[in-house]
């Protein structure tokens, strides 16, 4: 018994028998008012449109609802003819028409597997493969993984590389470096998550919880026992969301308390409270941050690692120019450089670096200064020509222990820098000139003049170099990493 026959038999027993129909193809002749498809209902249709009922009972229309209301959206006589299904088949190449019709049958049984036509924004994806198993298939035995947002130049990346080297030395196995938050080409023991295809789309197009699941699956399937998160948004998201809790011991790096221009504290320092319950140990590279982690966040297991810096012999630079080398971004306060350069018109400033986060709006002002020589971007301190340099100027608003200052010190260069984060640990005790964080350009100018006017400056440079040589050694770092590893076990 078909639905229609039942309808006729049970409800309209006095109605004439079915005499065929037109398949609902004469929409143009329909005398009925327009109605939205979502209002469609067989019962209502007949109750509110008696002529349609008559038409139906007379056998002139087999599917009156579709004919009158769902002409271009709902199924017609044969589901496979439906423009709606056709449209879905066009949009979602992975689904054959037959499968779509199969899904439509499920929808007809009350199972919510097809979006209704009234939900044009329903998200559909055709998935052919999931990523994340490549490492396990490769059969490489990793024990440690370092998750980093990127792997280019910079202090954070230096920590990643040094940590990987130390872990290899300590465990006898390579550490897997996972680049989680930016494009990267990968490489030996480097897995760039951007190379994964997740749900038939690029990794970075997937929802963040999905990405976190993939990260967790990689760590589990590769047999990783120790995870080190170094400024990675994804790893820290996964840690907070307890994605990694059951699969590995976790260490998390926090290097600084970032201060926005408004004074708001940003960065991962804001997340420490939610990271802490799922982290076995925190580590940083400066003692001040270590004390913040212990005293402000009440963390017990905090390690301060001195990132190694190669010793460089040679004379202390004694040129007449001032070096300013950094990202030309708002947090480094290039506006302060501009102001200082204006106050010291007789002194040349050699500026290295390029904007990364703040756009180009400082560049014009910098290039306009007659006593500024813009040298362009650099990828390593070794690229900087120090022959004319006698002082390194670092004007940042906040920082951890800035690697570039350590590099300058290792070359015996006298540094004038803002006393934020771990900078006083580097330049204190006569190893450079510290400027209070709330001081203006005049304070920097005085310090610079003092550097060039004082007989003590070469001694400052030597002390700085000796400090780096004594503290920032591979041995110190390896021992620190060893303590960190032990505390995670």
């Amino acid at each position, binding site marked *: 018994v078909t639905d229609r026959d039942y309808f006729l038999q049970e409800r309209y027993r006095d109605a004439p028998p079915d005499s065929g129909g037109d398949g609902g193809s004469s929409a143009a002749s329909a005398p009925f008012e327009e109605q939205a498809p979502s209002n469609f*209902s*067989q*019962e209502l249709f007949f*109750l509110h449109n008696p002529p349609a009922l008559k038409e139906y009972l007379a056998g002139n229309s087999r599917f009156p609802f579709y004919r009158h209301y769902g002409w271009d959206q709902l199924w017609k006589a044969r589901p496979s003819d439906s423009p709606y299904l056709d449209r879905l088949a066009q949009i979602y190449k992975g*689904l054959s028409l037959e499968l779509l019709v199969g899904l439509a049958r499920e929808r007809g*049984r009350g199972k919510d597997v097809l979006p209704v036509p009234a939900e044009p924004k329903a998200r559909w994806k055709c998935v*052919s493969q999931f990523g994340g*198993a490549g490492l396990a298939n490769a059969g490489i035995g990793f024990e440690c993984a370092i998750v980093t947002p990127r792997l280019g130049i910079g202090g954070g990346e230096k920590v990643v590389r040094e940590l990987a080297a130390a872990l290899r030395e300590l465990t006898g196995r390579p550490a897997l470096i996972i680049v989680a938050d930016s494009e990267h080409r990968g490489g030996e023991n480097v897995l760039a998550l951007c190379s994964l295809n997740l749900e038939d789309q690029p990794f970075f197009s997937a929802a963040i919880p999905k990405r976190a699941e993939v990260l967790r699956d990689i760590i589990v399937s*590769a047999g990783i026992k120790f995870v080190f998160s170094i400024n990675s948004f994804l790893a820290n998201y996964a840690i907070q969301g307890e994605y990694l809790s059951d699969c590995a011991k976790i260490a998390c790096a926090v290097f600084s308390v970032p201060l926005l221009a408004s004074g708001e504290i940003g960065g991962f320092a804001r997340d420490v409270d939610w990271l802490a319950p799922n982290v076995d140990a925190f580590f940083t590279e400066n003692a001040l941050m270590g004390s913040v982690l212990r005293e402000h966040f009440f963390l017990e297991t905090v390690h301060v690692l001195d990132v190694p810096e190669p010793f460089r012999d040679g004379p202390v630079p004694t040129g007449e120019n001032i070096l300013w080398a950094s990202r030309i971004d708002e947090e480094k306060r290039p506006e302060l450089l501009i102001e200082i350069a204006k106050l010291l018109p007789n002194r040349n400033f050699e500026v290295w670096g390029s904007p990364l986060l703040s756009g180009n709006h400082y560049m014009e002002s910098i290039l306009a200064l007659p006593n500024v020589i813009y040298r362009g971007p650099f990828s390593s301190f070794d690229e900087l020509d120090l022959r004319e340099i006698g002082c390194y100027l670092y004007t940042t608003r906040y920082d951890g222990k800035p690697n570039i200052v350590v590099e300058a010190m290792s070359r015996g260069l006298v540094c004038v820098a803002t006393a934020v984060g771990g900078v006083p640990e580097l330049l204190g005790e006569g190893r450079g000139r510290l400027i209070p964080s709330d001081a203006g350009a005049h304070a920097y100018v005085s310090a610079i003049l003092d550097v060039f006017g004082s007989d003590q400056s070469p001694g400052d440079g030597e002390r700085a170099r000796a400090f780096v040589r004594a503290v920032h050694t591979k041995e110190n770092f390896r021992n620190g990493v060893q303590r960190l590893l032990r505390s995670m076990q």
Partner: protein
Amino acid sequence: MKSAGLVVNFHCERRLGMKTLRFVRAAVEHLEQQGIALHCRLVLDRADEFTRSAVSGLAAGVPRSEVLEVDFGNLGASRAAGVARIDEKIVFFLDGDDFVSFNWFEKALEFFRAQGAGGEKLIAHTQFFVGFDKELFVRLGVDSRDDCFDALALAADWFFCNNLACHRSVFDAVPIEPYDHAGGFGAEDWHWSCETIARGFAHCLVPGTSYFYRGKPAKFSLGSAGQLVPRRSTLFDPPWVNAQATLRTKPAPRDEALAALDAEFYAEAERLVPFDFGLSYLRSLHAGAREVYYFRPGVPDEVAQSVRQFAAIDGTGGVDIIHADVERIPGAIAKIDDIVAQFGDKGAQRPRFYLLEGRPLELPPDDAINVVWLDRLKAAGTNEAQISRLIARFFIQSTDVRVFNFVSPRKRSLASSLAAAKRHSISVWYNLVLEYGLDRFSSTVTEVKEILAAGIAAETVAVFAKTARELVTEAEISVLHATSLEARYVSGERTLATETVAQTPAPAPSFEVHSPLASRESVPRMEIADEIFVEFCGEADTLTGTSAYLYLILGDATVSRETLAIMENAALSSLPTIAVPELIVRKRDTGNVYFRPDLAQMNAAVARGTFPFDLLQIPVLGFDMLTARPVWEELVRSNRTRIRLARLLREYLNPKGYRTKANLVFLGRNTIATCDESDMRRLDGARVALGVFRTEARRANTV
């Protein structure tokens, strides 16, 4: 020296509690300099070891503090326990991970001093309620004495939290009642504010003060839980409501007229930044570098009107609450009345209260029936959560409710929301299905199943026999149908629009029960246990039957009817074979994901000797019986009930005695399996994959 008591509640705040306690110590020291002695009662309610140890340790540094340990698991009860230990006249509350502005204590004490004896009827709150950490907002407080405020608005939303100060005697007059999450009742502060207002107390604001509320994931909170409303309150009982006939006398002020946050607000917030960096976001707000949701809580007048309307009916002998979408019901209210009249309760006339969506062709006068038009509430600005709470309030304040839920085929109603709180008063619940058959777009099955899943023992009545049969098949529930009801419905419908049907009680229809088949021929099946093991379901002799495959079905994953038939009748394979559906539908809130297993890729991986990881993304796997049976027989012989999935997979990926490895095939043409994320989470694919590799590695080393 002036004095006051402070109750601070802790549960599992861990380090966050230490931050708050450090602030408390600073506040106590600051107040001491002002000549005020603050006596702290630090209440640990089922605290974890970390929190207990931390609070106990830091409490030693807080003058005049006492640590109390209680075992309620209930914020309301633990607050009451703290109050019981306070001897001071004025009591303050603070949650163990929040902060208040330093000036709050001084200003509140000054406020009560200025009020004199009248202060005993007042409950003071901070002017601002400020979210930080995971939720950023600034909420302006409300004074319950304000002409703009209608207390019945508390039926739909929360206005007064426990960031309060009041005379100790208030708690003697109106004790804090513990919440009852299991019973569907939460928000003890909301309930307490209802009770205090009903008993003549007023909630008022102390200007220039702020409470800083830490937004956090729900799992960290003891007091908050979804799907909860305050318990029954005197405030909404007919005697109180009917005695307060007037609506608020002034319109609610608009949010855009809110005064700018002043220097005192920011200065007080700044003093707290050293205690929690998260509060520094207010610096950006101050500098204009960030915007934040700054609002005054409120609900439209229609909410209070609805409460008054409900209170006006005489529900002492029970009430019938009717949910319906009148646009879906031919004959609208007249037809509803006609059907409800068929469910006569021994001739008793019970008042009916209608909760209606849509607009009927002919609208009865507002005073003709007791109706709340949900569309009007929405149009006035009431959000869905507020409407759900308002509806729940009608149930909570009643004792004997019959529900007639006319299920709309197109729109899921709010009937099932807050079910735990509603069900205490429900005597009968009927889902009435008027559709003639379930068409392709019907949401009826979904709603009916939702109501049953919410724990409501509802009867589902289908007017048409055809619909009853289809519902039984699709929802797999028992469905009632009465021929007399169908006949009455069909015969009367042609005149429904104009004819008023008399509300004459009639004998209950004689229902026949359409029940789902007791058992459907099922396939031999395995389930996942502890994420990496598989267990056999059912009788062992199923394994010796004729089925070609042993199926692993994750969680509540389902297969289409056609797929099930194919699974039952699949042909036996002579080679190790794993069969998968041709299409997997993963249901997600944000839209379904359609996953077509790439057989070629997976078979290539098997041939290479690597693991086809996609296999573990499929919720239904068929393992050919010839290969599976010996594995299970060995398991039975060793008296074990489960096996690692990795071990089972190894039998297929690297089978003994076969030259070729497992072949991955489709179960059949157009085979479809549906699952959701929770089904897939039953299986830890990464650990299974790791297990396979380790086994392989061990085997390779042995060789």
